[in-house]
């Protein structure tokens, strides 16, 4: 899922100071799972804004809505009526959701209510960890399902740096060294030879450092799906 971390309500308040009508929009996908932008969090943020509005003596009019998926234009329909009179929308969706809302309602200010962190999962209740840097060129088959691009602090592709000690990463003692984990797993699988292979420079053009990425698959495009298969 996409991991996100809630922003402070005071940072949101700083942006909506003079406004009256607000929409707080949640998303039932990833941000619900990582407990930063689901129905519960929408209600929480709305209530805090309401209290703040009363305190300033000029209450907000706040609408709450949590759509099935903010990153899908069709799923944003429930916002249409609410956005007509809104001064701003606080989206608790990930950065994608914020942008899809902003694209659909170009005359309304959209404020991110969370900081989007990356692709990850739940390791225990209340703890989420990044696993995927979305580099666009997956090498997990060669690295025993442990991603060095994400989990090595330097994203090294040819083994550990000299700073890892006793299996800990030099960038933080609470982090395991990804390459030491890969080494142990390769050893268990009898594939240590894989460590001897020199992996050439990565094509970062597929990653976020290239131009904005776009996935185009003609076979699933609506106009072509009616055509008979070759």
């Amino acid at each position, binding site marked *: 899922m996409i991991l996100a971390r809630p922003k402070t309500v005071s940072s949101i308040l700083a942006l909506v100071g003079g406004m009256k009508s607000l929409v707080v929009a949640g998303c039932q996908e990833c941000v619900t799972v990582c407990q930063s932008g689901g129905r519960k969090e929408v209600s929480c943020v709305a209530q805090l804004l309401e209290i703040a509005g009363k305190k300033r003596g000029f209450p907000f009019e706040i609408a709450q809505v949590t759509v099935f998926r903010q990153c899908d234009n069709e799923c944003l329909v429930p916002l249409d009526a609410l956005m007509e009179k809104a001064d701003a929308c606080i989206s608790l969706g990930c950065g994608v959701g914020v942008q899809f809302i902003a694209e659909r309602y170009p005359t309304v200010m959209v404020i991110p209510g969370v900081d989007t962190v990356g692709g990850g999962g739940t390791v225990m209740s209340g703890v989420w960890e990044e696993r995927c840097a979305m580099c666009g060129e997956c090498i997990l088959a060669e690295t025993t399902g442990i991603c060095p691009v994400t989990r090595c602090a330097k994203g090294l592709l040819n083994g*550990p740096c*000299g*700073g890892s000690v006793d299996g800990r990463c030099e960038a933080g003692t609470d982090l395991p060294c990804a390459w030491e984990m890969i080494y142990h797993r390769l050893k268990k699988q009898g594939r240590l030879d894989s460590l001897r292979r020199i*992996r050439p420079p990565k094509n970062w053009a597929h990653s976020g450092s290239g131009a904005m990425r776009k996935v185009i698959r003609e076979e699933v495009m609506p106009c072509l799906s009616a055509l008979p298969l070759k």
Partner: protein
Amino acid sequence: MSIGPAAKVIEARTGSRLEKVLRAGHFAVTAEIGPPKGADGRRIQQLAALVKDYSDAQNLTDNQTAVVRLCSLAAAVHVLNSGGEPVLQMTTRDRNRIALQSDLLGAASLGVRNVLCLSGDHQRFGNHPEAKGVFDLDSVQLTATVRQMREERLFICGEEIKAPPRVFVGAVENPFAGPVELRVLRLGKKVMAGAEFIQTQVVYDVEGFARWMDTVCAAGWHKKTFILAGVTPPRSAGALRYMSRIPGMKVPEELIRRMEKASDKLREGQRIALEIINQVRAIAGVSGVHIMAINWEEAVPEIVSMAGLYPRP
């Protein structure tokens, strides 16, 4: 990019003094010079003048510990101008493949004949922990890149280089990071990528270093690359303790106690360095020492002289 020209012990071909010394079978001495945190090159020139006759080459660190300093390339030119033999350290932390290849061409054009390829300390440790780490390449890929540029006369992209950089290529290894098998695999990978010399992390734990060298020699890597053991004369017990906390450093507790007890700390520090040099020199497969007298470059001449390694070939 075709990768991994296996390192071959071949005739000196780069014009590097360090390469000549090593290929002639002499026990090599390199010394480290840390560029200052300012635009004054005189300090580098002074240090170069001080250590040049007592070492075969002088390493210029590249924003070591991720702290901004005068750049290693400019520092290397100051060393050249002082009659020294610079080893240009290049980390992949701050520059992408375009900048690294470009700097290498520039360095070679200015007369730099040695380069040391590293990934670099994580930016988190330095004075700009909020910086974006580049790491477009890793140290193995940078090593292979330099060899490819030198021998195949090709950039990473495959385009031809009319005047290739003639540089002697080195890399680093940390014998103490463990597990030993993984460390030796990685050393081998660097050698296969084209590292002609290896400078190691500072050795205080000589026994641990000897164990690592045993494994290195069993794999035969010492015949395909020149291994220079890292030596740092400690200035005080506090300095040793500080170093023991640096990731990848191992400092035996008894050494710290010995420094604590010493009445003349500097003398004792030099003595420790001398002992370590003599000990690593006796270990099979060690081709030289790399003296990193951090902020104490003045100690180098005496240590080298006491070790009987002066005059240099």
